[in-house]
């Protein structure tokens, strides 16, 4: 059986759906037997899902204008 340590090491592959059938079976078998790892995977997944929701800042008109100024300048400087 996999060790708890290995469950932690493989947790990203598991939640990203990056595992082969056999590896996934062994992973899930451990989870079925181990309450700590079940909790770990649950919390780990919830934590990542939460972070994924952190928004990127919106771009401001000033930033866009600045891009245009930079491009105009670069044309002159060539």
């Amino acid at each position, binding site marked *: 059986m996999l060790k708890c340590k290995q469950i932690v090491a493989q947790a990203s592959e598991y939640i990203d759906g990056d595992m082969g059938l056999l590896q996934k079976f062994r992973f899930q078998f451990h989870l079925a037997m181990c309450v700590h790892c079940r909790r770990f995977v649950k919390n780990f997944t919830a934590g990542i899902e939460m972070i994924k929701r952190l928004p990127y800042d919106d771009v401001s008109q000033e*930033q866009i204008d*600045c891009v245009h100024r*930079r491009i105009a300048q670069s044309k002159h400087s060539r």
Partner: protein
Amino acid sequence: MTESLAQLEAELMPGLAERDEKSFNRLVQTYYGSMLGLARTIVGEAIADEVVQEAWVSIYRALPKFEGRSSLKTWILRITANEAKTRLRKESRTISLEQFDNGGEGILANRFNNQGAWQAPPGAWHEESPETLLINTEMGDCIEHTLHHLPDLQQAVFALKDLDGNSFEAICNILDISSSNARVLLHRARVSLFGKIEHFQETGEC
């Protein structure tokens, strides 16, 4: 990449090839945020905006030569990453390279006994769904702070994958790293951030 982005790129391409201003504006609006998120991880907050501006000049020049071998977004982010790395070199800084010698459990390594079983198992969280977790803005700030203190490449891979939703294939292309490295870096970053969230859940402090 999502279907709607692919569609948008297909719509913009003809205009962009002729450097049509409207199409270019749409492009800037669409990808500025992703570029800034990436640039921050490599050069830091203070000059990230400048790097993105510089990247747009390069993108504008190179647009007629874009061959469509990757998505436009991947191509744009790759130019941004290269611009950021160039900037680092100019300031005699380099991206910190990491050794991958210890196991994949990262900062949680000391939580196991010699047999590899939990010694200090994870506790139950008060709130477990992502929606309720996010209510706490202090935790949001704490995560951001932690993220910006991770090694550069870990930050970059994490931002590209979990914050910006790029595929591993795109990430390897953008950062010039192997797919196995990208996976290790992502997992490391996630484990560190998880450790912090766990700490916050237990103590209410960052």
